[in-house]
């Protein structure tokens, strides 16, 4: 990397100040406040709060509903990762074989990434709502499709909506990853007698593993921490708690039920999760650079 040597400290300080100010105001202060309020208990009217140490955390992990939410979130995250990465890999491999119009396919497959999560949710709502959805009405009529009543269907819907958006992102990385697999290596495998899927499994996939690892981390972070918009727009975590992930529960407990202490404790738990995943990712990226 190129290093620039500044003559004094004033200019570099001035250059990083805006970014630091943003980080402090929008990340560090709220995070600090969350940590603080996770250690307090607020009265029902929000007028006073008392310091209670780690009581909020003890309550949280003693609550079977919270443990259930964690397990549900893990299932949700795993499903989103598998579906979004699997679909993206399939599409990327298929685009490799396209000769004419490859650019158009790629561009169109990248578009969904520009759609905001909540808007993505609404698009899926228009498509699959049992009363007004284009496809949903037909499904409702023929297959008893109604995600506002059936928890499994609701989960399926939020998984699909969340995964769909991420396919684009994964697709870009898989296309780039596939391009970095040397053409002659796959050709050598063909000459050695390896047919289609066997060749993919023994040559292409192992060479694609760095991309896969990277995307697993990115997708886990996305599914766990960035899907609130889509879920809230579609199901608000319901029916019951069928689609209530940890993220949705933070919002429901804090903003709707006004249990600020518990909600803050939950967001601190999520924050620790993000920190761990980010550390894993940095470690991994560092290793790749070597």
């Amino acid at each position, binding site marked *: 990397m190129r290093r620039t040597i500044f003559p004094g400290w004033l200019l570099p300080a001035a250059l990083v100040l805006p970014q630091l100010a943003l980080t402090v105001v929008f990340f560090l202060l709220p995070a600090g406040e969350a940590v603080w309020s996770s250690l307090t208990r607020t009265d029902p009217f929000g007028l006073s709060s008392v310091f209670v140490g780690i009581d909020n955390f003890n309550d949280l992990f003693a609550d079977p509903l919270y443990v259930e939410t964690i397990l549900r979130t893990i299932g949700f995250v795993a499903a989103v990762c598998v579906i979004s990465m699997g679909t993206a890999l399939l599409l990327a491999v298929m685009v490799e074989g396209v000769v004419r119009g490859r650019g158009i396919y790629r561009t169109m497959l990248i578009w969904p990434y520009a759609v905001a999560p909540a808007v993505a949710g609404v698009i899926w709502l228009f498509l699959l709502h049992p009363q007004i959805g284009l496809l949903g009405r037909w499904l409702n009529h023929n297959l008893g499709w109604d995600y506002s009543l059936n928890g499994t269907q609701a989960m399926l819907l939020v998984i699909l909506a969340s995964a769909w958006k991420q396919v684009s992102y994964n697709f870009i990385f898989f296309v780039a990853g596939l391009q970095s697999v*040397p053409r*002659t*290596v796959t*050709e*050598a*495998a*063909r*000459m*050695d*007698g*390896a*047919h289609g899927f*066997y060749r993919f499994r*023994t*040559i292409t996939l*192992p*060479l694609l593993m760095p991309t896969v690892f990277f995307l697993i981390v990115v997708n886990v972070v996305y599914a766990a921490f960035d899907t609130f918009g889509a879920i809230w727009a579609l199901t608000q975590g319901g029916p019951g708690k069928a689609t209530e992930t940890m993220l949705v529960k933070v919002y429901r407990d804090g903003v709707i039920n006004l249990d600020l202490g518990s909600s803050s404790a939950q967001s601190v738990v999520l924050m620790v999760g993000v920190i761990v995943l980010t550390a894993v990712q940095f470690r991994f990226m560092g290793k790749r650079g070597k």
Partner: protein
Amino acid sequence: MATLQLDGLRKSFGSTHILQGVDLSLADGEMLVIVGASGCGKSTLLRLVAGLETPTSGSVLLDGRDITKLDPAARDIAMVFQNYALYPHMSVAENMSYGLRIRGVPKDTIRAKVEATAGLLGLEKLLARRPRELSGGQRQRVAMGRAIIRDPKMFLFDEPLSNLDAALRVQMRAEIRRLQRRLGVTSLYVTHDQVEAMTLGDRLLVRHQGVPVQFAPPMEVFARPATAYVAGFIGAPAMNFLPATLDGHNARLASGHAIALPNAHPGHASVTLGIRPENVVVTPNGLPMTVDLVEPLGSETLVHGRLADGTPLLVKQSGAMPVGEVLYVDLPPAELHVFDAGNGQRLAA
């Protein structure tokens, strides 16, 4: 062991015709070298035989069987790539045994074959290593091992030596030839290097700008090049060319000096005379050549200079030689190659 036959093989990309009707046949165990500068279609030809490209028309017959439409995986042809194309995530042993494992060969047979092949190529101690832990020459050997281990019907070599340094190239060149002789596998070898072409091939196919210009054993290509292009391409250092006009048996150089040729070439007024640097004779009563560079190579000396009319001339003499400012040279008529000045075709000697 197999014969290869190409019938009217064509390849076009859009309106670009890379190959126009190639007819070629290789005898069992023969090594044919296709040589030419880049863009002559030699790599495309190899890829068509491999099955990595589909011909626009024409057919490829291996042992009399039409394999034109066959997937490369089903052809039983092995190829050595220019950049080796080893599987980076596999050890040397795994690289070599990949083709055998696909075919479901029993494990102990594979182990025995890997060991035998490694022994043949001097790779015994490297079997557990990954390709990135090997030197260029070792990678080249692994690529060779991967090709020979499964006893294919045929070998294809796509400039396999061009990524090696000079000393290693000489060594590997000899090794490839020795192996190919020993195994007796029909081979097609593509290169732009005329030394490889001369030393490796039973026969040589010289291609220029998408068309074949000469197809003959190496020494014949050297002794009787079909065109001025071939003459300049094969042989190092390259042949000298001198423009001349014909008058019966006499060829007159630009300087006015006349040389009596062994044959007359009626109907050709202006020609190009070719003479290899080693065939130029240094003699006190020859043509004066102004010397501008002397390269002593130890066993031989190269002298660059110009004749009185300005035509550049290169002289190669064995051993060291004292050179003044002017060298007197003679061009023996028997050593002259006569080409048409227009189309470069050799005129019947």
